[in-house]
Protein backbone atom coordinates (compact mmCIF):
# COMPACT_ATOMS: atom_id res chain seq x y z
CA UNK A 1 0.00 0.00 0.00
CA UNK A 2 2.91 2.26 0.71
CA UNK A 3 3.83 2.02 -2.96
CA UNK A 4 0.43 3.34 -4.07
CA UNK A 5 0.59 6.28 -1.69
CA UNK A 6 4.13 7.06 -2.82
CA UNK A 7 3.10 6.70 -6.49
CA UNK A 8 0.16 9.05 -6.14
CA UNK A 9 2.27 11.57 -4.25
CA UNK A 10 4.98 11.41 -6.88
CA UNK A 11 2.39 11.71 -9.69
CA UNK A 12 0.99 14.84 -8.08
CA UNK A 13 4.54 16.17 -7.75
CA UNK A 14 5.29 15.50 -11.43
CA UNK A 15 2.13 17.30 -12.53
CA UNK A 16 2.56 20.27 -10.21
CA UNK A 17 6.28 20.75 -10.90
CA UNK A 18 5.67 20.39 -14.65
CA UNK A 19 8.58 17.93 -15.01
CA UNK A 20 9.72 18.80 -18.55
CA UNK A 21 10.74 15.26 -19.54
CA UNK A 22 7.42 13.77 -18.42
CA UNK A 23 5.33 16.34 -20.25
CA UNK A 24 7.52 16.02 -23.31
CA UNK A 25 6.84 12.26 -23.32
CA UNK A 26 3.13 12.76 -22.61
CA UNK A 27 2.73 15.19 -25.48
CA UNK A 28 4.59 12.87 -27.85
CA UNK A 29 2.42 9.91 -26.80
CA UNK A 30 -0.66 11.99 -27.50
CA UNK A 31 0.21 13.33 -30.92
CA UNK A 32 1.62 10.03 -32.15
CA UNK A 33 -1.45 8.03 -31.14
CA UNK A 34 -3.97 10.64 -32.32
CA UNK A 35 -2.23 10.92 -35.70
CA UNK A 36 -1.99 7.13 -36.05
CA UNK A 37 -5.68 6.67 -35.19
CA UNK A 38 -6.83 9.43 -37.54
CA UNK A 39 -4.80 8.00 -40.43
CA UNK A 40 -6.03 4.49 -39.63
CA UNK A 41 -9.53 5.98 -39.43
CA UNK A 42 -9.31 7.43 -42.95
CA UNK A 43 -8.09 4.17 -44.44
CA UNK A 44 -10.01 1.88 -42.10
CA UNK A 45 -13.46 3.42 -42.53
CA UNK A 46 -13.03 3.33 -46.30
CA UNK A 47 -11.95 -0.33 -46.20
CA UNK A 48 -14.71 -1.21 -43.76
CA UNK A 49 -17.30 0.38 -46.02
CA UNK A 50 -15.94 -1.44 -49.02
CA UNK A 51 -16.01 -4.77 -47.21
CA UNK A 52 -19.56 -4.16 -46.01
CA UNK A 53 -21.12 -2.81 -49.22
CA UNK A 54 -19.24 -4.27 -52.16
CA UNK A 55 -19.34 -7.93 -53.10
CA UNK A 56 -16.11 -9.30 -54.52
CA UNK A 57 -14.24 -12.60 -54.39
CA UNK A 58 -12.04 -12.94 -51.32
CA UNK A 59 -14.17 -10.60 -49.25
CA UNK A 60 -14.81 -13.14 -46.49
CA UNK A 61 -11.10 -13.85 -46.30
CA UNK A 62 -10.26 -10.14 -45.94
CA UNK A 63 -12.86 -9.73 -43.18
CA UNK A 64 -11.44 -12.74 -41.35
CA UNK A 65 -7.93 -11.29 -41.76
CA UNK A 66 -9.00 -7.94 -40.31
CA UNK A 67 -10.61 -9.68 -37.33
CA UNK A 68 -7.53 -11.83 -36.80
CA UNK A 69 -5.40 -8.68 -37.07
CA UNK A 70 -6.96 -7.33 -33.89
CA UNK A 71 -4.99 -10.02 -32.06
CA UNK A 72 -1.62 -8.97 -33.44
CA UNK A 73 0.79 -8.68 -30.49
CA UNK A 74 2.42 -5.25 -30.44
CA UNK A 75 5.87 -6.83 -30.18
CA UNK A 76 5.18 -8.71 -33.43
CA UNK A 77 4.15 -5.46 -35.13
CA UNK A 78 7.31 -3.93 -33.69
CA UNK A 79 9.48 -6.74 -35.03
CA UNK A 80 7.88 -6.61 -38.49
CA UNK A 81 8.28 -2.83 -38.49
CA UNK A 82 11.92 -3.23 -37.50
CA UNK A 83 12.51 -5.64 -40.39
CA UNK A 84 10.86 -3.17 -42.75
CA UNK A 85 12.54 0.02 -41.49
CA UNK A 86 15.96 -1.36 -40.61
CA UNK A 87 18.70 0.08 -42.82
CA UNK A 88 18.94 -3.43 -44.26
CA UNK A 89 15.18 -3.60 -44.79
CA UNK A 90 13.15 -2.60 -47.87
CA UNK A 91 12.25 0.83 -46.42
CA UNK A 92 15.65 1.41 -44.82
CA UNK A 93 16.40 4.31 -47.15
CA UNK A 94 13.70 6.41 -45.49
CA UNK A 95 15.71 6.41 -42.22
CA UNK A 96 12.54 6.27 -40.17
CA UNK A 97 13.73 3.76 -37.57
CA UNK A 98 14.07 5.31 -34.10
CA UNK A 99 11.95 8.32 -34.95
CA UNK A 100 8.39 9.12 -33.79
CA UNK A 101 7.23 8.51 -37.35
CA UNK A 102 8.14 4.84 -37.06
CA UNK A 103 5.85 4.62 -34.03
CA UNK A 104 3.06 6.32 -36.00
CA UNK A 105 3.46 3.67 -38.68
CA UNK A 106 3.37 0.80 -36.19
CA UNK A 107 0.37 2.17 -34.32
CA UNK A 108 -1.39 2.72 -37.64
CA UNK A 109 -1.05 -1.02 -38.25
CA UNK A 110 -2.29 -1.69 -34.72
CA UNK A 111 -5.37 0.55 -35.11
CA UNK A 112 -6.35 -0.38 -38.65
CA UNK A 113 -7.92 -3.85 -38.04
CA UNK A 114 -9.96 -2.49 -35.13
CA UNK A 115 -11.48 0.26 -37.24
CA UNK A 116 -11.99 -1.92 -40.33
CA UNK A 117 -13.70 -4.66 -38.32
CA UNK A 118 -16.02 -2.35 -36.41
CA UNK A 119 -16.94 -0.25 -39.44
CA UNK A 120 -17.70 -3.34 -41.50
CA UNK A 121 -19.66 -4.96 -38.69
CA UNK A 122 -21.70 -1.92 -37.77
CA UNK A 123 -22.66 -1.18 -41.39
CA UNK A 124 -23.70 -4.82 -41.91
CA UNK A 125 -25.80 -4.64 -38.77
CA UNK A 126 -27.74 -1.55 -39.85
CA UNK A 127 -31.52 -1.89 -40.12
CA UNK A 128 -32.19 -3.04 -43.74
CA UNK A 129 -34.71 -0.20 -43.99
CA UNK A 130 -31.85 2.30 -43.88
CA UNK A 131 -30.51 0.90 -47.16
CA UNK A 132 -34.00 0.72 -48.70
CA UNK A 133 -34.87 4.27 -47.65
CA UNK A 134 -31.62 5.69 -48.95
CA UNK A 135 -32.16 4.04 -52.31
CA UNK A 136 -35.86 5.03 -52.47
CA UNK A 137 -34.90 8.63 -51.77
CA UNK A 138 -32.78 8.48 -54.90
CA UNK A 139 -29.60 9.65 -53.14
CA UNK A 140 -26.30 9.47 -54.99
CA UNK A 141 -23.75 6.87 -53.93
CA UNK A 142 -21.67 9.38 -51.94
CA UNK A 143 -24.70 10.71 -50.01
CA UNK A 144 -25.89 7.18 -49.31
CA UNK A 145 -22.53 6.31 -47.75
CA UNK A 146 -22.74 9.41 -45.54
CA UNK A 147 -26.18 8.30 -44.35
CA UNK A 148 -24.89 4.83 -43.51
CA UNK A 149 -21.91 6.25 -41.63
CA UNK A 150 -24.14 8.62 -39.74
CA UNK A 151 -26.43 5.74 -38.72
CA UNK A 152 -23.47 3.63 -37.57
CA UNK A 153 -21.60 6.50 -35.92
CA UNK A 154 -21.86 5.21 -32.34
CA UNK A 155 -20.12 1.92 -33.12
CA UNK A 156 -17.55 3.67 -35.33
CA UNK A 157 -16.73 6.28 -32.72
CA UNK A 158 -16.30 3.50 -30.17
CA UNK A 159 -13.89 1.84 -32.60
CA UNK A 160 -11.88 5.08 -32.72
CA UNK A 161 -11.83 5.25 -28.92
CA UNK A 162 -10.73 1.61 -28.62
CA UNK A 163 -7.99 2.16 -31.19
CA UNK A 164 -6.83 5.29 -29.38
CA UNK A 165 -6.76 3.52 -26.02
CA UNK A 166 -4.64 0.72 -27.46
CA UNK A 167 -2.22 3.05 -29.25
CA UNK A 168 -1.84 5.58 -26.44
CA UNK A 169 -0.86 2.99 -23.84
CA UNK A 170 1.02 0.70 -26.23
CA UNK A 171 4.57 -0.32 -25.30
CA UNK A 172 6.01 -2.93 -27.69
CA UNK A 173 5.86 -0.85 -30.87
CA UNK A 174 7.10 2.35 -29.23
CA UNK A 175 10.01 0.48 -27.66
CA UNK A 176 11.09 -1.44 -30.78
CA UNK A 177 10.52 1.20 -33.46
CA UNK A 178 11.04 4.37 -31.44
CA UNK A 179 13.96 3.10 -29.37
CA UNK A 180 12.89 5.08 -26.27
CA UNK A 181 15.29 7.92 -27.15
CA UNK A 182 15.16 10.74 -24.65
CA UNK A 183 13.44 13.87 -26.02
CA UNK A 184 13.10 12.22 -29.45
CA UNK A 185 10.99 9.11 -29.32
CA UNK A 186 10.28 8.50 -25.65
CA UNK A 187 6.58 8.05 -24.97
CA UNK A 188 4.85 7.96 -21.62
CA UNK A 189 4.55 4.16 -21.89
CA UNK A 190 8.27 3.61 -22.63
CA UNK A 191 9.21 6.13 -19.94
CA UNK A 192 7.10 4.11 -17.48
CA UNK A 193 8.82 0.89 -18.54
CA UNK A 194 12.19 2.61 -18.17
CA UNK A 195 11.54 3.79 -14.61
CA UNK A 196 10.20 0.37 -13.66
CA UNK A 197 13.21 -1.42 -15.14
CA UNK A 198 15.49 0.94 -13.25
CA UNK A 199 13.69 -0.22 -10.13
CA UNK A 200 12.12 3.18 -9.42
CA UNK A 201 8.60 1.83 -8.86
CA UNK A 202 7.18 5.04 -7.39
CA UNK A 203 8.12 7.07 -10.44
CA UNK A 204 6.90 4.26 -12.72
CA UNK A 205 3.62 4.24 -10.85
CA UNK A 206 3.36 8.02 -11.11
CA UNK A 207 3.86 7.92 -14.87
CA UNK A 208 1.38 5.12 -15.45
CA UNK A 209 -1.18 7.03 -13.37
CA UNK A 210 -0.55 10.01 -15.62
CA UNK A 211 -0.99 7.75 -18.66
CA UNK A 212 -4.28 6.49 -17.24
CA UNK A 213 -5.40 10.02 -16.38
CA UNK A 214 -4.72 11.48 -19.82
CA UNK A 215 -6.37 8.47 -21.49
CA UNK A 216 -9.49 8.89 -19.38
CA UNK A 217 -9.53 12.66 -19.99
CA UNK A 218 -9.39 12.22 -23.77
CA UNK A 219 -12.10 9.55 -23.71
CA UNK A 220 -14.35 11.71 -21.53
CA UNK A 221 -13.79 14.79 -23.68
CA UNK A 222 -14.74 12.90 -26.84
CA UNK A 223 -17.81 11.37 -25.17
CA UNK A 224 -18.97 14.80 -23.99
CA UNK A 225 -18.46 16.19 -27.47
CA UNK A 226 -20.58 13.37 -28.85
CA UNK A 227 -23.31 13.86 -26.24
CA UNK A 228 -23.50 17.58 -26.96
CA UNK A 229 -23.84 16.96 -30.69
CA UNK A 230 -26.70 14.58 -30.05
CA UNK A 231 -28.36 17.24 -27.90
CA UNK A 232 -28.05 19.76 -30.74
CA UNK A 233 -29.55 17.33 -33.20
CA UNK A 234 -32.68 16.90 -31.13
Amino acid at each position, binding site marked *: MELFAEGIREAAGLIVSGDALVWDAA*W*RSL*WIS*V*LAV*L*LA*GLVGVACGLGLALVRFPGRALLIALARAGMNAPTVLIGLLGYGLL*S*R*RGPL*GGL*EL*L*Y*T*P*WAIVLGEFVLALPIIVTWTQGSIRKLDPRVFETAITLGLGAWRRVLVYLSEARLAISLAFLTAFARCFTELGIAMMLG*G*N*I*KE*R*SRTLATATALE*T*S*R*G*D*FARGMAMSLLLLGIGIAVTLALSLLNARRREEER
Partner: protein
Amino acid sequence: MRLLLVPALLVASFVFAACGESGDEAGRLVLATTTSTRDSGLLDRLLPIFEEETGCRVDVVAVGTGAALELGRNGDADIVLVHARDAEDAFMAEGHATRHEEFMVNHFVILGPEEDPAGIRGQDAAEAFRLMADAGATFVSRGDDSGTHEKEKSLRALAGLEECWPELLESAQPMGATLLMADEMGAYTLCDSGTWLSRRSKLRLVALVASGAGLRNPYAVMPVSAEKHPSARTDLAEKLAEFLISKRAQEMIRAYRIEGERLFTPTRLEERGN
Protein backbone atom coordinates in the same frame (compact mmCIF):
# COMPACT_ATOMS: atom_id res chain seq x y z
CA MET B 1 -18.80 18.71 -44.08
CA ARG B 2 -18.54 20.28 -40.65
CA LEU B 3 -18.04 16.73 -39.49
CA LEU B 4 -14.81 16.49 -41.47
CA LEU B 5 -13.47 19.88 -40.47
CA VAL B 6 -12.54 18.92 -36.90
CA PRO B 7 -10.40 15.89 -37.84
CA ALA B 8 -8.83 17.85 -40.69
CA LEU B 9 -7.80 20.66 -38.34
CA LEU B 10 -6.54 18.12 -35.82
CA VAL B 11 -4.38 16.38 -38.42
CA ALA B 12 -3.00 19.70 -39.61
CA SER B 13 -2.09 20.84 -36.11
CA PHE B 14 -0.53 17.51 -35.20
CA VAL B 15 1.52 17.35 -38.37
CA PHE B 16 2.68 20.87 -37.59
CA ALA B 17 3.62 19.87 -34.06
CA ALA B 18 5.37 16.77 -35.30
CA CYS B 19 7.48 18.65 -37.83
CA GLY B 20 8.81 20.79 -35.02
CA GLU B 21 10.24 17.61 -33.54
CA SER B 22 12.56 16.62 -36.32
CA GLY B 23 14.40 19.94 -36.55
CA ASP B 24 17.49 20.43 -38.64
CA GLU B 25 20.97 19.37 -37.60
CA ALA B 26 24.31 18.56 -39.12
CA GLY B 27 23.64 14.87 -38.69
CA ARG B 28 22.12 12.22 -36.55
CA LEU B 29 24.15 9.52 -34.93
CA VAL B 30 22.54 6.42 -33.43
CA LEU B 31 24.51 5.22 -30.41
CA ALA B 32 23.53 1.72 -29.25
CA THR B 33 24.55 1.08 -25.69
CA THR B 34 23.65 -0.83 -22.56
CA THR B 35 21.02 0.03 -20.01
CA SER B 36 23.60 0.25 -17.23
CA THR B 37 25.53 2.90 -19.17
CA ARG B 38 22.42 4.97 -19.73
CA ASP B 39 21.18 4.54 -16.17
CA SER B 40 24.49 5.81 -14.80
CA GLY B 41 23.64 9.26 -16.21
CA LEU B 42 27.21 9.73 -17.53
CA LEU B 43 26.14 10.04 -21.18
CA ASP B 44 23.77 12.88 -20.28
CA ARG B 45 26.87 14.74 -19.12
CA LEU B 46 29.23 13.84 -22.00
CA LEU B 47 27.04 13.86 -25.10
CA PRO B 48 25.70 17.44 -24.94
CA ILE B 49 29.31 18.68 -25.18
CA PHE B 50 29.98 16.54 -28.24
CA GLU B 51 26.68 17.67 -29.77
CA GLU B 52 27.61 21.29 -29.22
CA GLU B 53 31.11 20.87 -30.65
CA THR B 54 30.01 19.09 -33.81
CA GLY B 55 26.39 20.20 -34.28
CA CYS B 56 25.52 16.54 -34.64
CA ARG B 57 22.72 14.97 -32.67
CA VAL B 58 23.32 11.70 -30.80
CA ASP B 59 20.31 9.44 -30.27
CA VAL B 60 20.94 6.92 -27.50
CA VAL B 61 19.23 3.55 -27.86
CA ALA B 62 19.80 1.57 -24.68
CA VAL B 63 19.41 -2.22 -24.82
CA GLY B 64 21.42 -5.18 -23.52
CA THR B 65 24.98 -5.64 -24.80
CA GLY B 66 23.86 -8.54 -27.03
CA ALA B 67 21.08 -6.49 -28.60
CA ALA B 68 23.31 -3.41 -28.97
CA LEU B 69 25.85 -5.44 -30.96
CA GLU B 70 23.03 -6.88 -33.05
CA LEU B 71 21.92 -3.33 -33.95
CA GLY B 72 25.48 -2.68 -35.06
CA ARG B 73 25.52 -5.89 -37.12
CA ASN B 74 22.34 -4.79 -38.89
CA GLY B 75 23.75 -1.32 -39.54
CA ASP B 76 20.97 0.28 -37.48
CA ALA B 77 23.45 1.81 -35.07
CA ASP B 78 26.37 4.02 -36.16
CA ILE B 79 28.41 3.33 -33.05
CA VAL B 80 28.15 0.87 -30.17
CA LEU B 81 29.27 1.33 -26.57
CA VAL B 82 29.30 -1.96 -24.66
CA HIS B 83 31.10 -3.98 -22.00
CA ALA B 84 31.66 -7.62 -22.97
CA ARG B 85 35.17 -8.19 -24.26
CA ASP B 86 34.63 -11.56 -25.98
CA ALA B 87 31.51 -10.36 -27.80
CA GLU B 88 33.38 -7.17 -28.79
CA ASP B 89 36.28 -9.20 -30.21
CA ALA B 90 33.84 -11.25 -32.27
CA PHE B 91 32.22 -8.04 -33.53
CA MET B 92 35.63 -6.69 -34.58
CA ALA B 93 36.67 -9.99 -36.17
CA GLU B 94 33.53 -9.96 -38.33
CA GLY B 95 34.61 -6.57 -39.64
CA HIS B 96 31.61 -4.60 -38.43
CA ALA B 97 33.64 -1.85 -36.78
CA THR B 98 36.55 0.33 -37.85
CA ARG B 99 38.25 0.32 -34.44
CA HIS B 100 37.90 -0.71 -30.82
CA GLU B 101 38.59 1.91 -28.17
CA GLU B 102 38.46 1.00 -24.52
CA PHE B 103 37.93 4.28 -22.69
CA MET B 104 36.75 3.62 -19.16
CA VAL B 105 36.41 0.89 -16.59
CA ASN B 106 34.50 0.09 -13.44
CA HIS B 107 34.12 -3.24 -11.71
CA PHE B 108 31.52 -5.82 -10.84
CA VAL B 109 30.41 -6.60 -7.32
CA ILE B 110 28.78 -9.74 -6.00
CA LEU B 111 25.91 -8.70 -3.77
CA GLY B 112 23.99 -10.74 -1.27
CA PRO B 113 22.13 -10.73 2.03
CA GLU B 114 23.95 -9.50 5.13
CA GLU B 115 23.83 -13.03 6.69
CA ASP B 116 25.76 -14.44 3.67
CA PRO B 117 24.60 -18.08 4.01
CA ALA B 118 27.09 -19.33 1.40
CA GLY B 119 30.00 -17.61 3.15
CA ILE B 120 31.41 -15.82 0.13
CA ARG B 121 32.39 -12.57 1.87
CA GLY B 122 35.86 -11.47 0.88
CA GLN B 123 36.50 -14.53 -1.32
CA ASP B 124 37.89 -14.54 -4.84
CA ALA B 125 35.11 -14.06 -7.43
CA ALA B 126 35.30 -17.51 -9.03
CA GLU B 127 35.60 -19.13 -5.60
CA ALA B 128 32.46 -17.23 -4.54
CA PHE B 129 30.51 -18.81 -7.40
CA ARG B 130 31.73 -22.27 -6.42
CA LEU B 131 30.64 -21.66 -2.82
CA MET B 132 27.20 -20.43 -3.90
CA ALA B 133 26.72 -23.50 -6.11
CA ASP B 134 27.85 -25.85 -3.34
CA ALA B 135 25.53 -24.21 -0.82
CA GLY B 136 22.62 -24.18 -3.30
CA ALA B 137 22.27 -20.45 -2.66
CA THR B 138 19.60 -18.51 -4.54
CA PHE B 139 21.28 -16.38 -7.20
CA VAL B 140 19.39 -14.03 -9.53
CA SER B 141 21.04 -14.03 -12.95
CA ARG B 142 20.29 -11.47 -15.67
CA GLY B 143 19.93 -14.25 -18.23
CA ASP B 144 19.76 -11.78 -21.13
CA ASP B 145 23.22 -11.86 -22.81
CA SER B 146 23.98 -8.48 -21.27
CA GLY B 147 27.56 -7.61 -20.39
CA THR B 148 26.81 -8.51 -16.78
CA HIS B 149 25.39 -11.87 -17.83
CA GLU B 150 28.46 -12.58 -19.98
CA LYS B 151 30.69 -11.81 -17.00
CA GLU B 152 28.65 -14.12 -14.78
CA LYS B 153 28.97 -16.94 -17.33
CA SER B 154 32.72 -16.47 -17.59
CA LEU B 155 33.08 -16.47 -13.77
CA ARG B 156 31.03 -19.67 -13.57
CA ALA B 157 33.26 -21.25 -16.23
CA LEU B 158 36.33 -20.09 -14.29
CA ALA B 159 34.93 -21.76 -11.19
CA GLY B 160 34.61 -25.02 -13.13
CA LEU B 161 30.82 -25.01 -12.97
CA GLU B 162 29.61 -26.55 -16.18
CA GLU B 163 25.95 -26.37 -15.34
CA CYS B 164 23.79 -23.87 -13.51
CA TRP B 165 22.65 -24.97 -10.08
CA PRO B 166 18.87 -25.24 -9.54
CA GLU B 167 18.70 -22.14 -7.34
CA LEU B 168 20.13 -19.94 -10.11
CA LEU B 169 17.15 -17.98 -11.45
CA GLU B 170 17.16 -15.98 -14.67
CA SER B 171 15.29 -12.70 -14.36
CA ALA B 172 15.66 -11.61 -18.02
CA GLN B 173 15.27 -8.05 -16.75
CA PRO B 174 17.55 -5.01 -16.66
CA MET B 175 19.94 -4.48 -13.78
CA GLY B 176 17.78 -2.21 -11.63
CA ALA B 177 14.83 -4.59 -11.65
CA THR B 178 17.13 -7.58 -11.08
CA LEU B 179 18.58 -5.87 -7.99
CA LEU B 180 15.10 -5.41 -6.57
CA MET B 181 14.27 -9.07 -7.21
CA ALA B 182 17.42 -10.23 -5.45
CA ASP B 183 16.67 -7.83 -2.60
CA GLU B 184 13.13 -9.14 -2.16
CA MET B 185 14.28 -12.77 -2.30
CA GLY B 186 17.29 -12.34 -0.05
CA ALA B 187 19.35 -13.74 -2.93
CA TYR B 188 22.81 -13.17 -4.36
CA THR B 189 23.40 -11.35 -7.63
CA LEU B 190 26.16 -9.88 -9.79
CA CYS B 191 26.01 -6.15 -10.52
CA ASP B 192 28.15 -3.44 -12.11
CA SER B 193 29.45 -0.96 -9.57
CA GLY B 194 27.77 2.02 -11.30
CA THR B 195 24.26 0.66 -10.94
CA TRP B 196 25.04 -0.63 -7.45
CA LEU B 197 26.28 2.75 -6.21
CA SER B 198 23.29 4.60 -7.60
CA ARG B 199 20.80 2.08 -6.18
CA ARG B 200 22.22 0.84 -2.90
CA SER B 201 20.51 3.38 -0.63
CA LYS B 202 17.18 1.72 -1.45
CA LEU B 203 18.37 -1.86 -0.96
CA ARG B 204 19.18 -4.19 1.92
CA LEU B 205 21.74 -6.07 -0.18
CA VAL B 206 25.39 -5.67 0.74
CA ALA B 207 28.54 -5.93 -1.36
CA LEU B 208 30.26 -9.20 -0.43
CA VAL B 209 32.92 -9.55 -3.14
CA ALA B 210 34.05 -6.23 -4.54
CA SER B 211 37.65 -6.52 -5.71
CA GLY B 212 39.94 -8.69 -7.76
CA ALA B 213 41.10 -8.77 -11.35
CA GLY B 214 38.27 -11.14 -12.28
CA LEU B 215 35.72 -8.40 -11.65
CA ARG B 216 37.19 -5.74 -13.94
CA ASN B 217 34.53 -4.27 -16.26
CA PRO B 218 36.00 -2.31 -19.18
CA TYR B 219 33.76 -0.26 -21.47
CA ALA B 220 34.64 0.17 -25.13
CA VAL B 221 33.30 2.10 -28.06
CA MET B 222 33.28 0.84 -31.66
CA PRO B 223 32.31 2.94 -34.73
CA VAL B 224 30.37 0.84 -37.23
CA SER B 225 32.23 0.44 -40.52
CA ALA B 226 30.79 2.12 -43.59
CA GLU B 227 32.56 -0.48 -45.72
CA LYS B 228 30.32 -3.13 -44.23
CA HIS B 229 27.23 -0.95 -43.80
CA PRO B 230 27.19 1.80 -46.45
CA SER B 231 24.55 3.86 -44.63
CA ALA B 232 26.53 4.03 -41.37
CA ARG B 233 27.84 7.48 -40.53
CA THR B 234 31.33 6.30 -39.81
CA ASP B 235 32.94 9.75 -40.01
CA LEU B 236 30.72 11.14 -37.24
CA ALA B 237 31.04 7.93 -35.25
CA GLU B 238 34.84 8.19 -35.46
CA LYS B 239 34.59 11.73 -34.13
CA LEU B 240 32.55 10.52 -31.17
CA ALA B 241 35.09 7.79 -30.43
CA GLU B 242 37.88 10.40 -30.63
CA PHE B 243 35.91 12.61 -28.27
CA LEU B 244 35.42 9.85 -25.69
CA ILE B 245 39.16 9.19 -25.50
CA SER B 246 40.02 12.90 -25.55
CA LYS B 247 41.49 14.54 -22.47
CA ARG B 248 38.38 16.63 -21.94
CA ALA B 249 35.96 13.69 -21.88
CA GLN B 250 38.36 11.53 -19.87
CA GLU B 251 38.60 14.20 -17.18
CA MET B 252 34.83 14.52 -17.08
CA ILE B 253 34.56 10.76 -16.60
CA ARG B 254 37.03 10.97 -13.73
CA ALA B 255 35.05 13.82 -12.16
CA TYR B 256 31.65 12.16 -12.49
CA ARG B 257 30.25 11.14 -9.13
CA ILE B 258 26.97 9.95 -7.66
CA GLU B 259 26.50 10.43 -3.92
CA GLY B 260 30.19 11.22 -3.62
CA GLU B 261 31.32 7.98 -5.29
CA ARG B 262 33.21 7.85 -8.58
CA LEU B 263 31.37 5.53 -10.99
CA PHE B 264 33.94 5.05 -13.74
CA THR B 265 37.70 5.31 -14.05
CA PRO B 266 38.99 6.72 -17.36
CA THR B 267 41.61 4.48 -19.00
CA ARG B 268 43.08 6.86 -21.58
CA LEU B 269 44.38 9.72 -19.45
CA GLU B 270 47.90 8.46 -18.74
CA GLU B 271 48.81 7.66 -22.34
CA ARG B 272 47.99 11.24 -23.30
CA GLY B 273 50.77 12.55 -21.13
CA ASN B 274 48.93 13.20 -17.89
